[in-house]
């Protein structure tokens, strides 16, 4: 057999999951994912799966289910939906189940080291590329496809072209990974990465905190990608090893328990080959970036923050799988310390997980939020997709740290959503108008 040309991350990850030595771009192969994710949509997926007439799912040990999209249940229908999921989890012996309040699927599966570098996770959630922060291959799929995986353990994937995005140097103070993601989507369009695997590289990426790295592959869902990747480094291995260690201490039996957590974390990790082929390469100078805002009603309608500063907002929301982590809470607390949310504006803050909430409590951030007049919600997706409270009235404007600003996204058709980094959301809540936090003390 001819030795393969240098391979991209996507080629290596798909080859691994397909049990093949290597795959070509454009090839369609059947993969066996390491983890299959679903959430509040699990009851609907079960209805489809029942059509197969199976008594048992074939991959209970690979299935992860979180209740996060509408928690705690806001209506009887939602409560029935959750109850059905709990029955299914019990009956099928599903390995990973996370209850109402534990947090958002992508955050929780990261915190619990359910997914590891180099593994392939398919989820009935469009933000599944999230797991690229640790060098895993995550892709969103539909409900019928998850039902198919429960029944067969495998699904077809096309090996995508790859795109390289390089960030050189350090982001200036007040400019975040969210701003970088918005800039990319604004420059190249909501379909700029359609069907591709985006690999991030460069000194600017290497120097990002782990929580900031989580923002980039997550936001690439708004760029049309199949998956996105950041090479795992020592910090990633340390983060996941500690969490695996904790699971071992809690008495969980892991596969290959003779291996140390470090070895378990690194045994599947994958790196693209030097000389791998990219369909496009984009280079950004971190120092030249600034805070950006995505304006209604499209994530690629991106302008520098200064262009929309002064826009009146009735609601401000900090949370979601994109920007609801501890450093986002810290950024909000720094802005809100000894300040008050403006009259006529409400600020809703929802940590992305119970661990984030606990840490934010310990560090006094939650105290700061309440003193500033913010509302703190139960860890989960919150009002991101209009399922659970925090719904704007017609005519109202929301500024949000979430990932989508589509018309009707938060539950009301005639409402506007602006997307930004969390510090901008907090500053806008204090001023009542879209505001650059770096200029707040001069106001």
């Amino acid at each position, binding site marked *: 057999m001819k030795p393969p040309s240098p391979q991209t991350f996507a080629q290596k990850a798909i080859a691994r999951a397909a049990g093949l030595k290597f795959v070509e771009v454009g090839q369609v192969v059947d993969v066996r994912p390491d983890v299959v994710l679903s959430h509040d949509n699990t009851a609907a997926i079960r209805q489809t799966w029942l059509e197969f007439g199976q008594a048992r799912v074939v991959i209970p040990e690979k299935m992860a289910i979180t209740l996060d999209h509408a928690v705690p249940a806001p209506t009887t229908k939602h409560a029935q939906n959750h109850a059905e999921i709990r029955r299914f989890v019990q009956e099928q012996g599903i390995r990973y189940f996370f209850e109402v309040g534990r947090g958002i699927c992508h955050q929780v599966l990261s915190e619990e080291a359910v997914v590891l570098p180099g593994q392939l996770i398919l989820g009935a959630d469009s933000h599944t590329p999230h797991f690229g922060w640790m060098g895993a291959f995550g892709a969103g799929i*539909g409900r*019928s496809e998850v*039902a198919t995986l429960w029944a067969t353990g495998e699904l077809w994937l096309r090996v995508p072209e790859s795109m390289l995005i390089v960030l050189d140097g350090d982001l200036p103070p007040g400019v975040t990974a969210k701003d970088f993601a918005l800039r990319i989507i604004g420059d190249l369009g*909501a*379909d700029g990465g359609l069907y591709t695997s985006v690999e991030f590289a460069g000194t600017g990426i290497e120097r990002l905190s782990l929580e900031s790295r989580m923002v980039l592959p997550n936001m690439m869902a708004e760029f*049309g990608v199949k998956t996105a990747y950041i090479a795992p480094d020592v910090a990633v291995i340390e983060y996941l090893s500690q969490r695996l260690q904790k699971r071992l201490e809690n008495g969980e039996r892991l596969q290959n328990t003779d291996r140390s957590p470090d070895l378990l974390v690194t045994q599947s990790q994958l790196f693209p080959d030097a000389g791998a082929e990219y369909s496009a390469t984009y280079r950004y100078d971190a120092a030249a970036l600034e805070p950006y805002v995505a304006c209604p009603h499209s994530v690629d309608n991106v302008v520098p923050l200064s262009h929309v500063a002064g826009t009146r907002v009735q609601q401000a929301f900090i949370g979601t799988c994109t920007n609801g982590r501890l450093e986002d809470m810290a950024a909000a607390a720094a802005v809100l310390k000894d300040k008050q949310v403006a009259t006529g504006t409400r600020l809703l803050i929802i940590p992305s997980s119970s661990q984030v909430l606990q840490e934010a409590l310990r560090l006094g951030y939650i105290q700061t939020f309440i003193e500033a007049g913010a509302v703190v919600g139960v860890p989960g997706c919150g009002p991101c997709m*209009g399922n659970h409270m925090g719904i704007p009235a017609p005519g109202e404007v929301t500024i949000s740290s979430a990932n989508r600003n*589509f018309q009707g996204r938060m*539950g009301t058709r005639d409402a506007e959503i602006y997307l930004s980094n969390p510090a901008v959301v907090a500053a806008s809540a204090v001023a009542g108008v879209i505001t650059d936090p770096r200029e707040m003390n001069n106001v």
Partner: protein
Amino acid sequence: MSEIRGRAWKYGDNVNTDVIFPGKYTYTASGQEEIASHALEDLDPSFAANVRTGDVIVTGRNWGCGSSREQAATCLVFNGVGAVIAESFSRIFYRNAINNGLLAITCPTAVQVIEAGEIVMVDLQNHTIHCAAGHFSFPPMSGSVRQIVEAGGLIEYVKRKLVVEA
């Protein structure tokens, strides 16, 4: 099914799944009629009441971007939509469409000339779209995609596969 014939409903670029099927219904709407009634609710409130079996949606780039919700495809199927003809599709919508037997046809040249309301005919055997401005060919489906569509969707396809394996 080798031919689809219906009126064109024309929309723009980056039509997302929130306007095709609003997120607020995703965990509660069940049953074909209820799901069908919300189709394109926040994009074109006249659509669900007026669409007829065989009608086609003609749209620009990246149709179906956003959420993975499968109702974005099934709400069209339940309304009898014959095909979506687009300049390009978001990848999850494309999979959901194929998996539910909804034809997702990529044909940028046809999209540019088809006007709202005109009668469009899709000839599946010859991979050709016929409309007022002329005839336009589109690429045939790849092998795995064709097998799923021919089975009537992913669930039927997998059912047959499971029977064969047993």
